[in-house]
């Protein structure tokens, strides 16, 4: 039973990572490592900038 639960939660985490849910955590980890002592972007601002970045630099989707 535990194996099933942990398997499902691992699958859930994987799906979330592929969809990009963890982008802010990744950014925070990067920020903490590279710019310690400086304030990181607040979550809302981060997501906004992430979307707006795509306006300036669109990514292709294949056929």
């Amino acid at each position, binding site marked *: 039973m535990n194996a099933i639960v942990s398997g499902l939660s691992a699958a859930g985490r994987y799906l979330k990572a592929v969809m990009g849910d963890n982008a802010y955590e990744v950014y925070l980890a990067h920020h903490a490592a590279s*710019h310690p002592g400086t304030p990181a972007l607040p979550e809302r601002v981060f997501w906004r900038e992430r*979307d707006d970045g795509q*306006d300036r630099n*669109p990514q292709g989707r294949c056929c």
Partner: protein
Amino acid sequence: MSDDVKRTRPEAGDTAAVIEQDPALPPVTVPEAEREAEERHWTPLKIAIWAAIALLGGVAWVMLAVVRGETVNAIWFVFAAVCTYLIAYRFYSKFIERAITRPDDRRATPAEYNANGKDYVPTDRRVLFGHHFAAIAGAGPLVGPVLAAQMGYLPGTLWIIVGVILAGAVQDYLVLFFSTRRGGRSLGQMARDQLGRVGGTAAIIATLVIMVIIVAILALVVVNALGESPWGVFSVSMTIPIALFMGVYLRYFRPGKITEVSIIGFVLLMAAIVGGGAVAATEWGAAAFTLDRTTIAWGIIIYGFIAAILPVWLLLAPRDYLSTFMKIGTIFMLAAAIIFVRPEITVPAFSEFAGDPAGGPVVAGSLFPFLFVTIACGALSGFHALIASGTTPKLLEKERQARFIGYGGMLMESFVAIMALVAAISIDRGLYFAMNVSAANTLGTVEGAVAFVNSLGLTGVNLTPELLTQTAQNVGEESIVSRTGGAPTLALGLAHIMQSFIGGTAMMSFWYHFAIMFEALFILTAVDAGTRVARFMLQDTLGNIVPRFRDASWTLGAWICTAIMVAAWGAILIMGVTDPLGGINTLFPLFGIANQLLAAIALAVCLAIVADRGYFRYLWVVALPLAFATVVTVTASLYKIFSPVPAVGYWAQNAAFREALAAGDESFGTAPTRAAMEAVVRNTVVQGSLSILFVTLTVIVIGVAIFRTIRAFQNGGGVNTEDPVVPSRIFAGSGLVATKAEKRIQKEWDALPVERRRAKARHE
């Protein structure tokens, strides 16, 4: 392995002295000797597993290619494909790694040395595999194999599987690796660096034109799937408000909850499919949503323009999330369904049309070269080079992972193509032809379709009007005659398989529209993104003349360039929709040719890079697929330009119709009026000119690449266009599963205090 290669400058193998490891950190890679020992060590268990894989694959191929009984079970397709992929991945891609790419995990990737926490992020390899796969796979591998099923199942199956291991996956892997070594530069930039001004410019223009063609023909597939289908039109239009809702939700209510909003979107989407059936059943619904193809085409053109100028967060990003979510879900569902249902296939290995130089009613022309341009995505897709350069390299953690992501990702797409082929051939052959032959032949009526299909004289095919009307009724459509473009056939195949898995005949109409929906979703996402990317490329090019176009914040400039790009693909789309000769069937070869010409360009760039590195002994790894893609596309283009057979050659068709017009005929061939005849003359001029343009640009690019390769050979190598070496300070495994040595080193890293673990170069 490296000492037998002539070298003129330091290579990956020689950089040991250059790359100095931080002594305070655990190793950033498995030591060369240890990895070699592990890879070359064959335990009896390992030998037994690979022997079993080879045996199973061999049996499957024998069942498909040699035994070819009255019927063949679909499971053999799965075994043949998966076993061949595993062997190719383990042995051939490993060979390419040792001979050509020679990754060095002591070197930092752009994701590491440029890390900014946003677009340059060292990403877990399994997550990146998902990202990369979602970016490369779309509707392409779902459509081409369906059309090629006209020739029987074996030509398509062979080309998809052999093509991917020797060509498609090689291209994806090499482009990904070479772009990673060059800071994640795009294919266009690499072409400029590697091939100089002329070759580079030709490559960029070709890319732009090819993108326009690809977007137009994908849009045409959607138009054909939705024409005269109120259910489809309703549920696909509902994706727009659903995406808008998701966009607003993510922007203002729950930023970052991407999976959550995708699940909500998915539920709404299912509701839209079910609701579509109810709406289409009402009188007002049928009246409001039964649209002819020209109207739908105009709708997509207007939509495409608006979607490309709206902010990304509002429409494009949420649609992309939904599309990714559906992609992962439906592929697993399709694989599970095929494995559980294991349909019996009655289509012959080689059909009557496989040996016919004139081809058949779905794809005109002989098997060579037209099989190889009809199936592009899934076997060899140049478009992937645009993703494998630029986007994915900025997320790649370690050089050695490029094999898993690049080669492995493409194998996965190839498997999708195999499943699409299986779905398409699991339906009755008579139905297949009734759906895929253009209305010019079937007259769009049940009687016309029955008469035409039965007149083809196919063995074992006896189409009845009852079968056509019954099937149409089962999938909730008015008619399924001449639903060309591949998507409806795949949808029917999928519905056919899924209904015996879940739900029975009563669920068939749901599954059919579910399949139409996800194909439309993939394609519309590709149309949005393609228009945007093409617009940026145009802005960049125009910026050489009017510098202001480079300024991305200049709204008018962006609008002008968007309008130009939309007008370009829109014109081809309208041309395809109104074409009296059947649109998709004449235009689809152009899609395949365009896609593979892009592949030829990407491979040409790779060829020049491999030559510059001095690895001439292994040049054939790139030269082989490049030569094949070049021969196929150039031959196909020349057929399209010079063939005297009107069904094959654009100019021959043009001449035939011009003569008929000059003779004062009131109708000719399948064109019933003089206006239609004039349309054929116009369309063939455009198609013929595009063919000439493509082939000219490609010959220039390949010519320059060969010239550079010969020069590099004479000099024993060439200029190194790689970025300078930066020592890596992180560790990660390279394959799907971590090896023993990788686990050991990972433990050392896990024991390190967190603040020292990912201490990368600061860039304040």
